[in-house]
């Protein structure tokens, strides 16, 4: 398998000492892991990865749920509006990153202008360059980009709920809120868990959005694990350490995947014979 060869190589690499400057590769056992575990930067990056993942997934789920509930109603031009909601997910990340950098620009950005005009701000914010705002800005950007993934899946599930259930609830005197709580939410539970899990796995390993918007800065404020691994490999040229960081990511991915396969067993979708 094309996909497994590089991973195997990365894990093998994490046990050797290899830098771009030395032609010799020497076996070093667990040295890279000992070094990386003692490295405070790793723990910082791990923590920021968790903050980014949690923030982005919660935002995506919230946006996706609200949008899907609203789009599930009948109104004119629904197909057109729905396809607009699909667009962000299919857009190349570079486009999303460039557009949001422009929107959030400190001097010329329209977001700052609108906030100043509505007097929510007194002076323009440096969204992507500010220590306090950079993380929130990348979280908001990925919420916009991937919220539509959640919308798609939740909407598909909503349409599969039999209308009979709602009729029965109404007959027994349930209001709209009650209907949502007792009919919609229980039916959506599996989908919400699925979206949270998949998006969580993908956001935890997200490189391109963050790198393109902030390069992990300012002062490592948005340096998550994949960016840390990239810097180890291509700025410090320590491939052994980078591979060790990658293996840490891989182990966390495996943990997430185990939960996913336990809960959903997607391989049932194909006939595997025995």
């Amino acid at each position, binding site marked *: *398998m*094309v*996909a*497994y*060869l*590089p*991973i195997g*190589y*990365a894990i093998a690499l994490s046990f050797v000492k290899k830098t771009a400057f030395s032609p010799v590769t020497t076996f070093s056992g667990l040295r890279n892991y000992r070094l990386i575990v003692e490295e405070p930067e790793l723990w910082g990056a791990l923590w920021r990865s968790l903050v980014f993942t949690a923030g982005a997934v919660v935002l995506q789920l919230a*946006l996706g749920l*609200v*949008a899907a509930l*609203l789009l599930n*109603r009948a109104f004119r031009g629904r197909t057109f*509006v729905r*396809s*607009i*909601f*699909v667009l962000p997910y*299919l857009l*190349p*990340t570079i*486009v*999303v990153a*460039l*557009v*949001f*950098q*422009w*929107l959030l*620009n400190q*001097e*010329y950005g*329209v977001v700052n*202008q609108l906030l100043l005009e509505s007097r929510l701000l007194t002076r323009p914010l440096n969204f992507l360059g500010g220590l306090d705002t950079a993380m929130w800005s990348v979280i908001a950007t990925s919420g*916009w980009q991937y919220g539509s993934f959640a919308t*798609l*899946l939740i909407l598909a599930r909503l349409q599969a709920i039999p209308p009979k259930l709602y009729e029965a609830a109404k007959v027994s005197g349930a209001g709209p809120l009650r209907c949502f709580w007792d009919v919609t939410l229980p039916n959506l539970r599996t989908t919400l868990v*699925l979206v949270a899990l998949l998006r969580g*796995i993908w956001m935890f*390993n*997200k*490189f*391109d959005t963050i790198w*393109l918007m902030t390069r992990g800065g300012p002062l490592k404020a948005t340096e998550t694990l*994949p960016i840390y*691994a*990239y810097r180890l*490999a291509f700025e410090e040229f320590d*491939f052994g350490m980078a*591979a060790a960081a*990658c293996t840490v*990511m891989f182990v966390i*991915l495996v943990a997430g995947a185990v939960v996913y*396969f336990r809960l959903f067993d*997607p*391989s049932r*979708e*194909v006939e*595997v014979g025995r």
Partner: protein
Amino acid sequence: MKDGAARWAPMAALLVILVVVAFPFYWMVLSAFTPRAVLFRPPYQLVRLDLSLENFRDLLFATEFLVYAKNSVLAAVGAIVLNVVAATLAGYGLTRFAFRGKRTFAFGTLFSYMFPPMLMAIPLYILFSALKMRNTYLGLILAHMAISLPLNIWIMWQYFQIVPLSLEEAAWVSGASRLRALREVCLPSARAGILSVAIFAFALSWNDFTFAFILQTDRHMFTLPVGLATFVEQTAIHWGMVMASAVLVSVPTFALVFFLQKYLLSGLGMSAK
């Protein structure tokens, strides 16, 4: 009164979300057509009519945009062709032949679909350096296949299950070889599957930043995402031109969504479930 609010509140909420979703698109397009002199003199008006093609002219004639575009197109075409061939053969084999370890293979395919690009790009960089495959189209195409092929095999696997074996048996009886039966009986029935494989292969290759960024270090081999990223590294950023490039790069996405609306909505649901 209460009835009115209950009817209008959701529509108002939808309108707010629609603005949040659509505004970045609108602003991208508007900025792309706004002359440079106006763009750098806020405050802006949200609607304007003094538009020009100046930014597109700068983009096409003063940058290497067309070189990046050529590289992106070549990589995408290669990824489509190789993905379709490999996924069709693998999907066919997986449906029609019985062998041990199928369940493990199904599991492995789905699991590798979750692999993040960074996890594969660093080892591929070292591997391709040794093989002298960095800065080549073949290397980039293979890297893109590493992320798209697993799901594509999965898609074809599901599609071939719908093609009845009896159709194929009829072809064998009339003397067709296994490959001929595959080509003339199975492939036409699995056309929708092949189309989704091609779309998915294209989208992943076209959208990819991470692999191209790490593997293609020579300026002349940059793809669009990597090339565009260099536009905002300068000190005086020509934002109008940057937005013009963003518009051009998203054209295939817009085209896909509007031509294949219905198809995409159902297809995406399937592949992601």
